[in-house]
């Protein structure tokens, strides 16, 4: 009997709790997120799982065959995979270092309320708004070996022109230079916004203590701006790791594979050679890298921003 009574009270309590939650609950929320989630599920979430499955198959768009780990095994003997990995890493490291470094320096200068700040910001940011196709076209003309401006200027200075995009020694550097030109303005804009949120009194106190501009930069600006730097590095890592458009247009990975990158390899394998399964295993390598970067972001990123 006692048991039944207890049971009843528990049930009643649970019902009351349910009712009160229902009062504050908006089931219409499910309906409002449904359209978004439908697209997310079909075009983002499911494809990740689908890609994993594809990476264990051989698929040429007509016949699909389960092959286990053999795509991954083949990856380890694929010289183009290693070349593209090396190119991607070099590209990412150089582009990221230069854009983040120069971005901070220029942002600090712009933050001094220079003359023409608006114009300067507009011109630095313009390449960011321009499409990568247009940027590639313009720079291919700049790099044109016999009539382009790059070599014309060098020759005016008495330096022999280079073959730029047609020379395996120079092609990757030329592409990197273009990417830096395009991405620099974005980093500056983010840094300027971050600099404006640093409390002024920190600098005033430092000035009273006799710290000069350079010391203020290293002891106040750099530590205060750390979360922004971290954000730029994390998003920049992912963004640059996926470099493709300028490669496809300016060099198509050449000459002699000196500019082929991971996404370029994925594109070629999947959509030119129809080795879908193998390309999917390359994509898994990319996903793994992005997962690691994101995990590092969660591990160290939170700490960085709470310190700020």
């Amino acid at each position, binding site marked *: 009997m006692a048991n039944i009574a207890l049971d009843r009270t528990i049930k009643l309590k649970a019902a009351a709790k349910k009712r009160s939650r229902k009062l504050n609950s908006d089931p219409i929320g*499910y309906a409002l997120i449904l359209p978004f*989630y439908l697209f997310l599920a079909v075009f983002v979430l499911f494809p990740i799982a689908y890609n994993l499955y594809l990476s264990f198959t051989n698929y040429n768009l007509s016949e699909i065959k389960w092959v286990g780990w053999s795509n991954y095994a083949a990856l380890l003997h694929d010289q183009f995979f290693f070349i593209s990995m090396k190119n991607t890493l070099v590209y990412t490291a150089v582009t990221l270092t230069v854009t983040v470094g120069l971005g901070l320096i220029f942002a600090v200068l712009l933050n001094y309320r220079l003359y023409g700040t608006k114009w300067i910001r507009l011109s630095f940011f313009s390449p960011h708004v*321009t*499409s990568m196709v247009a940027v590639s076209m313009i720079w291919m*003309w*700049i790099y044109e070996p016999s*009539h382009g401006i790059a070599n014309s200027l060098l020759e005016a200075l008495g330096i022999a022109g280079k073959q730029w995009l047609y020379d395996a020694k120079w092609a990757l550097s030329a592409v990197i230079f273009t990417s830096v030109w395009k991405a620099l303005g974005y980093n500056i804009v983010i840094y300027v916004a971050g600099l404006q949120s640093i409390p002024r009194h920190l600098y005033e106190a430092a000035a009273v203590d006799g710290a000069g501009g350079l010391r203020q930069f290293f002891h106040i600006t750099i530590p205060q701006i750390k979360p922004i730097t971290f954000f730029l590095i994390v998003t920049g890592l992912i963004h640059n790791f996926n470099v493709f458009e300028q490669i496809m247009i300016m060099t198509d990975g050449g000459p002699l594979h000196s500019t082929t990158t991971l996404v370029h390899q994925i594109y070629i394998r999947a959509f030119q050679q129809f080795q879908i399964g193998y390309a999917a295993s390359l994509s898994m390598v990319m996903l793994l890298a992005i997962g690691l970067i994101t995990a590092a972001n969660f591990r160290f990123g939170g700490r960085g921003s709470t310190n700020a």
Partner: protein
Amino acid sequence: MPKKPFIIPVSLAMLGLSVAMLLPFFLMILTSLKTMDEIFAPRFVWVPERLDWANYAEALQRGDWGTYVSNTLYVTIVTILVSLLINSFAGYAFAKLNFKGRDILFLLSLIGLMIPPQVTMIPVFLVLKHIPLAGGNDLWGQGGLGWIDSYNGLIAPYVAGSFGVFLFRQFFLQIPQELDDAAKLDGMGRVRAFFHLYVPLSKPVFATLVALKATASWNEYTWPLVITNSDEMKTVQLALSMFRDENQVQWDLLMASTTMLVIPLLILFAFTQKYFIEGIVASGVKG
């Protein structure tokens, strides 16, 4: 605060650099107005002797630019309309409504922010190929081409837009609870409150997302390259990337068509800078 003594030299240096940053654009425009003789002259010609506007007319005749532009505009407009609608719905629900699993669902949706589309282009291509009852497919998505080489194929992968949801949620979270209480007192339901109170308040977010999505859509290259194969489906960037001739590049025409695709966007940007910058900053600093 008085200006420091180094402001003038630093300003001059930065102004000089900003002109250098714009140099590629100047070259683009100047080259688009040169004759091929001037382009291939032994000494580099900076400013053409006579402005050769005919390059623009000729560039427009190389290819069906009317189709490319209208394709791109159609894709851009539909993507913006659909994604802003469903993103604002979802952002509102995640910010203001209570339902079970809300926070988990929101966190899961952030995967869309982290995974770059290049990494999933193969499975997304195959999903589009197997859309049931489209492009000659049967109910099981077999037999035809699905949404490959179609407007839907160009649009569908860009509709979800986790970034838009993220931005709307951030904005709605700042709106005080009192607004909802007032709406409730007036007998407004959640959905009516959204349309009558939240949408008018969030005009800046809409403007920012329109600016960012319009630019992204107009500038998109990789996905049209993957999903289209006919000339009728080409977008402007894809068409521009294929403009080059096999043997000798017609730089005058190439730069004329590049100018036509770049300048409108730069002018638009100059006037709507605020929304661009706000969107960029919102994604970076506040995110």
